[in-house]
């Protein structure tokens, strides 16, 4: 039941990774403060990344539930389900819903996430194109692929595009994927791993076109927005489709932050306590531009694990704990058609001041580490991924790895190769990776 006076100690705008983790963390500090979460989707929190499993038929909404059914009750949260916040007033400390209801807060978290970027492609609005970020998108795609052999065209071979490709393939669609850059997953992977993913996709019969972009979309029904069409590439090639998915990245949803006059750059700027430029307003998740511990400066890292961690720290700090956010990093864990690929930090060094070591494993796996001045700054493992987290943690620690850097590439790599003192601190004290960065 919403509070009659409309006043809350804490209001969280956004009911996904960052918002829900913030609420949970906040409750570990403050059991009784009044707390509301606003979620614009008419659903309790679910795992957004699992929409690909949903479309592929591997999961249903029940399995996608990110928290138990009683989550909101147990945590004493007034959950405003399907209620969108459209206005934020920092001075009067109020948010206003689309229906015009006003709610006051003492501390506010903006966890509004991101929206798919809509590329300027001529004719795009004349076909019923799809995006692939939420439950509704997944439901639309399931409906659109009822007939076997549906010709699906995906623009963008980033994480979202490739997961969409895999899911649509599982639905029996004939999939073509067009990527503007020279290779698939250009941001998350390096050339070699991209080549491995592309080989496995092509092996399954997916049509992969790289280094090309869709310049124009021509509707089959004269723009009535009911059917597919034809996409014309820059090189003149034409590809007919029944279904078009646009997956060229996401942009932070900053409307509320802009209204309130918060400092923004690519995302809403936050300090190391996840505070925005406005007192008592915090931001976390895809919308936030928070400290990146590898680059040593703020960055938008619109990835689930970063969102959850930012949410947790924001929640603690809102409730009066003072905990410094150790920082985000680019990290990806994906599996395509049985090939697992994990990466963290800098996998494509921007210049030659970095040292790159790679190895091919006997079992066909691939491993790469990136160093700068003997400090581990990036890693990628494909095929054999066990213990990759140790590498991630060494990146977080900015560990000097000169004495054991060759061992990083072996599949037997583990704590045994670390200097004894380091190993003892990690294993005995549990001081490793991000855990060692937490200020108590």
């Amino acid at each position: 039941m919403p509070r009659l006076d409309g006043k809350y100690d804490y209001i969280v705008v956004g009911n996904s990774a960052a918002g829900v983790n913030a609420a949970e963390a906040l409750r570990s500090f403050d059991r009784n403060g009044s707390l509301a979460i606003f979620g614009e989707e008419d659903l309790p929190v679910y795992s957004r990344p699992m929409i690909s499993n949903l479309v592929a038929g591997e999961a249903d909404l029940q399995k996608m539930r990110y928290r138990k059914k009683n989550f909101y009750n147990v945590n004493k949260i007034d959950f405003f389900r399907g209620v969108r916040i459209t206005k934020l007033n920092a001075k009067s400390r109020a948010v206003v819903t689309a229906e015009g209801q006003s709610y006051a807060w003492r501390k506010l978290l903006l966890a509004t996430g991101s929206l798919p970027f809509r590329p300027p492609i001529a004719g795009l609005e004349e076909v019923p194109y799809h995006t692939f970020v939420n439950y509704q998108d997944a439901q639309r795609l399931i409906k659109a692929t009822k007939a076997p052999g549906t010709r699906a065209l995906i623009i963008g071979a980033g994480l979202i595009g490739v997961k969409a490709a895999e899911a649509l393939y599982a639905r029996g669609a004939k999939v073509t994927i067009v990527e503007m850059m020279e290779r698939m997953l250009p941001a998350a992977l390096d050339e070699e791993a991209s080549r491995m993913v592309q080989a496995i996709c092509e092996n399954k019969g997916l049509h992969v076109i790289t280094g090309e972009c869709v310049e124009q979309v021509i509707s089959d029904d004269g723009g009535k927005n009911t059917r597919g069409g034809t996409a014309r590439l820059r090189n003149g090639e034409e590809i007919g489709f029944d279904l078009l998915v646009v997956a060229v990245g996401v942009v932070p949803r900053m409307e509320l932050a802009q209204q309130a006059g918060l400092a923004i750059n690519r995302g809403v700027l936050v300090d190391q306590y996840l505070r925005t430029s406005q007192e008592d307003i915090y931001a976390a998740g895809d919308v936030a531009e928070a400290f990146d511990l590898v680059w040593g400066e703020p960055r938008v890292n619109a990835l689930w694990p970063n969102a959850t961690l930012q949410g947790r720290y924001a929640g603690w700090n809102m409730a009066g704990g003072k905990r410094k956010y150790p920082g985000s990093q680019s990290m990806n864990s994906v599996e395509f058609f049985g090939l697992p690929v994990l990466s963290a930090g800098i996998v494509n060094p921007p210049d030659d001041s970095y040292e790159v070591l790679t190895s091919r494993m006997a079992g066909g796996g691939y491993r790469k580490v990136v160093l700068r001045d003997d400090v581990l700054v990036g890693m990628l493992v494909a095929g054999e991924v066990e213990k990759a987290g140790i590498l991630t943690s060494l990146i977080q620690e900015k560990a000097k790895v000169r004495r054991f850097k060759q061992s990083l590439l072996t599949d037997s790599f583990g704590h045994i190769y670390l200097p004894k003192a380091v190993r003892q601190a990690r294993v005995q004290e549990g001081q490793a990776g991000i855990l060692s960065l937490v200020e108590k």
Partner: protein
Amino acid sequence: MIRIYPREEYCIGCRLCEIHCIAQHSSSKDLIKAFKKERRPSKRVEVEEAGHVSFALQCRHCEEAPCVSACISGAMSKDEKTGVVTNDPQRCIGCWTCILVCPFGAVRRSAVEHKVVAKCDFCPDLEIPACVANCPNEALIMEEI
């Protein structure tokens, strides 16, 4: 909360901890059957070895567990009372994010279940976890922290 600590000065690398861990997580929980007749489950403790040094390592059941906060499905959770971090195989979808973020390399892909991870669960059916109980040299000890 309890934690299992390795003592590398006592470990002789016999791997009995691994063997008994596998047996304990098999369907029969019988050593011979687990190795000869059944699909062999993943070990949740691993002996690391180089030269004369060896020790066994399993999940640290971290206070602020990175695998729990990074888990995309909500399958990984930490029991508030016991502090034990466990993975629910029914909810796990094998995205391997926990493998990516575990600083101890203590989560692995399950050898018997499809797209599910396996990790130390402190042997809920036993008073003392199998790896600790079967270490002949007390190179694995359990301590309250």
